[in-house]
């Protein structure tokens, strides 16, 4: 049954008439046309669909859209602010921390959550924190480097 669901998406209010049981992933990709959030497995196992809900990474393929009512949702399209890339995005570019790029949005938003809970994670903590995000191209080592260098910048910037 359609419900009215309101939340903030990438800094702007949205109000939708949708079945609240539907998964956030499909509502983002279809009605809202934000295709940066990717479908990878449909079981919350690969992390390609990670988005931020109130600043915490959530797997959009598992989250019901009703669960984000009244909350702040940020997708990869909303991470850059005022025309400037987020330090993580910049670090992924500078470190060539991607190949096919399909897992990249989920990697970046998961790393965002990691850096939020741990300002300066060790290499092992990054590996542990990212372990449930899958990459098939083998960009892992550069992703770890990128998160480390972004952590430096985030730290310096605050």
């Amino acid at each position: 049954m359609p419900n009215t669901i309101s939340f903030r998406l990438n800094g702007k209010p949205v109000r939708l008439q949708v079945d609240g049981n539907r998964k956030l992933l499909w509502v983002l990709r279809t009605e809202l046309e934000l295709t940066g959030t990717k479908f990878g497995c449909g079981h919350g196992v690969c992390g390609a669909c990670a988005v931020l809900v109130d600043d915490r990474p959530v797997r959009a393929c598992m989250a019901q859209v009703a669960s984000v009512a009244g909350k702040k949702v940020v997708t990869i399209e909303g991470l850059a602010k005022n025309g400037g890339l987020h330090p993580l995005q910049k670090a992924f570019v500078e470190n060539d921390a991607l190949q096919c790029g399909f897992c990249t949005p989920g990697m970046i938003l998961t790393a965002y959550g990691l850096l939020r809970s741990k300002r300066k994670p060790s290499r092992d903590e990054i590996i542990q924190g990212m372990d449930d995000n899958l990459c098939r191209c083998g960009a892992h080592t550069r992703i770890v480097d990128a998160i480390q260098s972004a952590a430096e910048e985030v730290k310096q910037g605050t």
Partner: protein
Amino acid sequence: MNTNNDLPLDSQENDRVRALPADLHSRREFLKRFGGGIVVFVGFGGKLAEADARFGQRGVPNDFNAFLRIAEDGRVSCLTGKIEMGQGPITSLVQMLADELDAPYEKVDIIMGDTDLCPWDMGTWGSLTTRAFGPLLRAAAAEARGVLLELASETLGVPISRLQAKDGVIFDRKNQKKRVTYGALAKGKPIARHLTVKPELKNVSEFRIMGQPKLRRDALEKVTGKAKYAADIRLPGMLYASILRPPAHGAKLKHIDTSGARKVAGVTVVEDGNFIAVLHELPDVAQEALGRMKAKFDVPRAPVTDENIHEHLIQVAPRGDVAAGGGNLAKGRKLATRTFETTFFDGYVAHAPIETHAALANIEAGKCTVWASTQNPFGARDQIARAIGFPGERVRVITPFVGGGFGGKTGNLQAVEAARLAKAVGRPVQVMRTREEEFFYDTFRPAAIVKIRSGIDDSGRMTLWEYEVLFAGQRGSEHFYNIPHHRTTARPRGWRGGRGTHPFATGAWRAPANNTNTFARESQIDIMATAAGMDPVEFRLKHLGDPRMIRVLRAAAKRFGWTPAKSPSKRGLGVACGIDAGTYVAAIAEVTVDARTGEVEVRRVLCAQEMGIVINPQGATIQMEGCITMGLGYALSEEIHFKGGQILDMNFKHYEIPRFSRLPKIETVILEANDISPQGGGEPTIVVMGAVIANAIHDATGARLRRMPMTPARVKAAMR
């Protein structure tokens, strides 16, 4: 490594890269855009014909306009039938074109995998982009540069010998005010011209852009979510399809009741024989409605499983095809004082790209346009045309970014399905596989068997090598050691078994056949080194004659800090060598093995590689790293379990691809070899990963693993 200033990090808009010309809806529009541009008809002649024959790509056009366009504003478009799936041609091809043309790197855009705009291409595989397509692209650019110099000479009234081309401008060396841009030359001058003398490609000493480490040109789009993949294309009125799938390969549909699905508001059901799909404006609703269908299948009896597959394969193997041989096997056996017979086994391995197969098809005014995740857009075009009864020229395949391929995105079934459904319902239709469908319809790397009988004499010299590979394929099966009496046989040559071989489809998987062959060969070499009481690096060097292989092995040993020791030395160090796509690879790995659990931890992998002239050292390095990381999977954990045609591993929960926690310390070395033409880069490094780990496990424990993946259970069993 200087990679500064390659990309505008302050800008969110990256208009430098146009991988997806979604705004160009037809060839006419494209030509309109370039209407003021130069149209030069030049036959390529000899050199390109040679290149064509070498790689069997006879359909590649001769006209260099097929490869590049120069617009009035001086921007250059690089046109290629190759596709970008992460391996980096979006950067390296632009380097080649810009350098040969003397155009500014930043002013070259690239359009990839669009069958209406790009020159015909067989497909993006075999590490052929740089070594086979590269020379074609460079020759086209060199010829265009030559023609532009002639035009400039006429325009400026200056002899060509006094002219210089640089950054898209041609000027008089004696009076630099006399200058003209490529864009200005192109303007309103459609000229048909042949160069009488074909220009040479640039020497490495003349490279300005090739050979420079360049960051990816698509990174900005990919970190901002702007990069479009096939499932990201949206058209007004489009529907999303979910398709009825059998529970097992070979299963037959006996009964179908679609009434449950039809009750869902907004659903359209398409029934075309066994091809049954549910379509809806929302993909998740279509998927949910599909679940409301009642289907009964007859599933055939399933005698073959992942447990007994090798026995079956040995029974059905076709007769041999000798790939290589020399000397006299009987003599080799006689000379051997010790012989070693080993059989190696490999299971089925999935491609498992994170992007599942997807396509969007739209039929409008008698033309079918399909955006597809595919490694071979031209093949897809022909398949679609056949399936919907259109002539080829009325089908256009556009390839957006592809989210990983590894040889698995060549079948194009999803593109054909989307086109059939679009035709059936008269609206644009997207097909995107679920993860389960992706595993089910994968063309797995075949399970395979390698039997080797080899021998050494009293001095520890190899005298005999009898090698037979069943079902992996021939690539990489030929050894490169000095063994006087040897024979290599592949049964069959390719990686697709005939009917009755595999219970499902098999196909090419990154460096097809070579992973299996290198695992077997390099393991067997180590077995003999151990028997001869020799250090495995020394044993190899003693039998190597090819200077390229000697060089990479020495480089790997030196950079790793290898000290000679007999294996098992308990250090957990392994070595392996391989050749793939013309590139030479030597790797050394360090592992620890948990004796209690059998768990293998790969701590360090160093790989030295010689790949001829390197176009983008940064991209080449990243491919090596990617191969090392991906290779950990087939070596240690990846294997498809199945019961007949029923695939038991259908998601990442069960099928374990390498994770961050598997990551070893990775070191790469690329050796300079500027006297050798560019060789393959996307696959070679992965071939050594099975053997280098198997040899390191042996060095750590004394246990010899003969079957991949080397799971904890198998390691434990081998240690007993």
